[in-house]
């Protein structure tokens, strides 16, 4: 079980902007993704990266936000903007036959956003509403505190927002952030689907291949502080909670770390799927929770692993005890050949699935491209999954999953 050729075709626009082209699928549709190194890691003030991204489609020098939305809707296209810690994305879904109509809209919002003041104000009020609603969820409280505890409150991956931050975003700051980061030399384009390749290449070259949006300077880098650790054990008490949200985990490493693929195997055994140890113990054996899992998050500059669950408040202590017991078990005893073999089969199936269909394939390439890597990551991952031994799993567990190293956050009671 190994996916066929997963490597996209590489091309460059006239201004050297890199393109990753995938031909796949039987539906006449195309997805195009733009990746900019313009996530919150790169911002100097709160909300700059996410607000810049959210404002792209709210108005340009040529079109109002309403006109942009109406045109995209008319062609049945989706033009979505988003951002995370490392990057900002513009994602377009279009019927292939309308790419010539839809891509100029994408070019306009990427290159000429005007950050209109009224729309900015509305957008910030809406986001503040969402933020304050989020703050009432125990899962959100735990997630936020966990990041702060793992990376430290001053670290770009650990910073938390306050409601006042939404009142202090100005259009000129966003325009500046856009000018510095939404540049051809800070961008990658991914195209996937069933489309006419020559035509798409010439459309993209025409819209994005010129020298007029290549930067002169270098984008500002984050003021990364070396104050890594916050509190290791935190209880955010909520008297009315009927469930407590748990996050137990630790700081790890960036996605390009040598131990990343092996730790994916370890993580899968621990809590990566329905048959994993945590799920079988905490849910299927004891019924403490609807779901529990562990995630290994490899970011561009750092990373973490976290065991995540919401458990009945009365089961909180017992659940935490069992989680540590599972960690100890992994550290004390090598996994059996049989269990490891099951995990390997599951993971290989998962990898195959992640390249099935044009959109999934693009996403898999994007997941590595955003950390500065390419498809060879998957070749390496498949080799690791196929070859890893119980002893190697044990060594990795001992190296990274000692219970004493864990940060533990509970929101609830």
């Amino acid at each position, binding site marked *: *079980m190994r*996916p*066929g050729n997963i490597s996209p075709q590489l091309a460059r626009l006239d201004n050297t902007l890199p393109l990753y082209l995938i031909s*796949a*699928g*039987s*539906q006449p*549709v195309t997805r195009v993704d733009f990746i900019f190194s313009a996530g919150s890691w790169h911002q100097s003030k709160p909300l700059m990266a996410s607000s810049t991204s959210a404002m792209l489609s709210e108005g340009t020098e040529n079109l109002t936000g*309403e006109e942009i*939305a*109406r045109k*995209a*809707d*008319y*062609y*049945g*296209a989706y033009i979505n903007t988003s951002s995370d810690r490392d990057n900002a994305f513009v994602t377009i*879904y279009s*019927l292939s036959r309308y790419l010539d109509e839809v891509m100029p809209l994408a070019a306009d919002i990427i290159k000429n956003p005007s950050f209109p003041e009224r729309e900015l104000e*509305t957008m910030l*009020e*809406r986001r503040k*509403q*969402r933020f*304050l*609603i989020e*703050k*009432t*969820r*125990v899962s959100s409280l735990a997630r936020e505190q966990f990041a702060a505890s793992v990376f430290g409150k001053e670290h770009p991956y650990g910073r938390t927002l306050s409601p006042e931050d939404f009142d202090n975003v100005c259009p000129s700051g966003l325009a500046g952030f856009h000018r510095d980061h939404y540049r051809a030399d800070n961008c990658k384009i991914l195209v996937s*689907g069933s489309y006419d390749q020559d035509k798409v290449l010439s459309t993209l070259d025409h819209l994005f291949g010129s020298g007029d949006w290549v930067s002169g300077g270098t984008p500002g880098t984050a003021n990364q502080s070396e104050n890594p650790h916050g509190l290791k054990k935190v209880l955010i008490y909520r008297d*009315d*909670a009927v*469930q407590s949200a748990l996050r137990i985990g630790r700081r790890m490493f960036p996605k390009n770390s040598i131990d990343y693929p092996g730790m994916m195997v370890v993580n899968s055994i621990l809590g990566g*799927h*329905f*048959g994993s140890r945590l799920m079988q113990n905490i849910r*299927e*054996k*004891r*019924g*403490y*929770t*609807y*779901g529990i899992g562990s995630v290994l998050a490899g970011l561009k500059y750092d990373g973490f692993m976290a065991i995540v669950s*919401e*458990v*009945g408040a009365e089961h909180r202590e017992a659940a935490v005890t069992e989680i540590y017991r599972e960690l100890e078990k992994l550290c004390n005893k090598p996994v059996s050949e049989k269990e490891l073999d*099951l*995990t390997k*089969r599951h993971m*290989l*199936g*998962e990898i*195959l*699935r992640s390249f*099935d*269909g044009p*959109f*999934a394939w693009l996403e898999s390439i994007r997941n590595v491209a955003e950390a500065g890597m390419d498809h060879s990551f998957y070749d390496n991952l498949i080799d690791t999954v196929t070859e890893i031994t119980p002893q190697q799993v044990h060594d990795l567990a001992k190296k990274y999953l000692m219970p004493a190293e864990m940060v533990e956050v509970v929101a609830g009671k």
Partner: protein
Amino acid sequence: MIEFKRRILDNGLTVIAHKDESTPMAAVNVLYDVGSRDDRPGKTGAAHLLEHLMFGGSLNIASYDREVQKAGGENNAFTSNDITNYYISLPSVNIETGMWLESDRMIGLNFSEKGLDVQKKVVAEEFRQRYLNQPYGDTWMLLRPLAYKVHPYRWPVIGSDVAHISNITLDEIREYYSEHYCPSNAILSVSSALEEDYCLDLAEKWFGTVKKRKTKIRSTPAEPQQDKMRKLDVTRDVPYDQIMIAYHMCERDSRRYYATDLISDLLAGGKSARLYRSLVMEKKIFGSINAFITGDRDPGLFVVKGTVSEGIEAERAYDEITGEINDFISRPPKNEELEKVKNKVEATRQYIQTSILYKATDLAYYELISDAGFLNEEIAQYRKTTQEEITSIAASLFRQENSSVLFYRSNHKSKPRK
């Protein structure tokens, strides 16, 4: 165009096979024509609880999950008002494993007190996680019994009370299974790069031995026509007021379904839609607003739901929605606006069909509601919807006496009033 072949086995099981050469994976989907509508009052949540027990092992298979994992598969299930649907996606070389797993749990389950007990606890935690421990989590628990007085759609799929779920006995759940999980009450659909006839033969091989059983005949009480507006006011510990308005709409296989669906898109399908432009971006009455249909097989609900902006009275926000709706009836969409939402429906269908799993699930569902081939004709139904239909259906849908309104108010005292 989604092509497929169909075979009905001697035991009554309907099998649909679709070929997609572009994929190394196979999707195996089994739909049972049973949902929360088949629960009994006082014992609501049974259909969903049974879905959980379907993963606890069957006649010849001790651990369903382990076998799926061995085959490199991924599986899940959902229960709705109308159906319970199970699916596996796995490398197509292992398609027979999928059929073995699904046929074995159609023959019989490993029921045990212990398994039932654990899954009751798991479902109780699901109930807490989704409905009790979430801001606005209980809105559907409140809206359903407001809109439905007789029809079983009046309770949520998970059950209306944790006590109902914990009171269900092993015998009752066993009976539920034997009454509803019969081959003649199920539809199997398969998508993969394998030849359709080959897949149908495989289905015959694995499911042909499942014994024919008699399905319980369903008799669902019809919801009487609503003749007066209903209103419910609650106050909760949430930061903003929320408003939900539910209007009774047509059944799934009605011709009026398409116009009703398009109305929800015209009002709230994306950033160019009317409610969003007017009430979010221009007047700032709502931080977010949505309109959608439940699309159930029996007459469902058309729902408008909005989270009110800080400083706006809920009553005013409600008036603004009804104002926009009246405006919609008096100022119906012009050609371009209607064309826009039709294009979007058609394109979205194409995006979804890039996934073989969705194709398999859709084929089974359309086979249930009319005919799997209808999946290919539905766009034409949307296309031929006229402005006149939209206006006349909107006028009958949005009558005040056809509405149930939930005012879900914030208790946050510090909220400034403008």
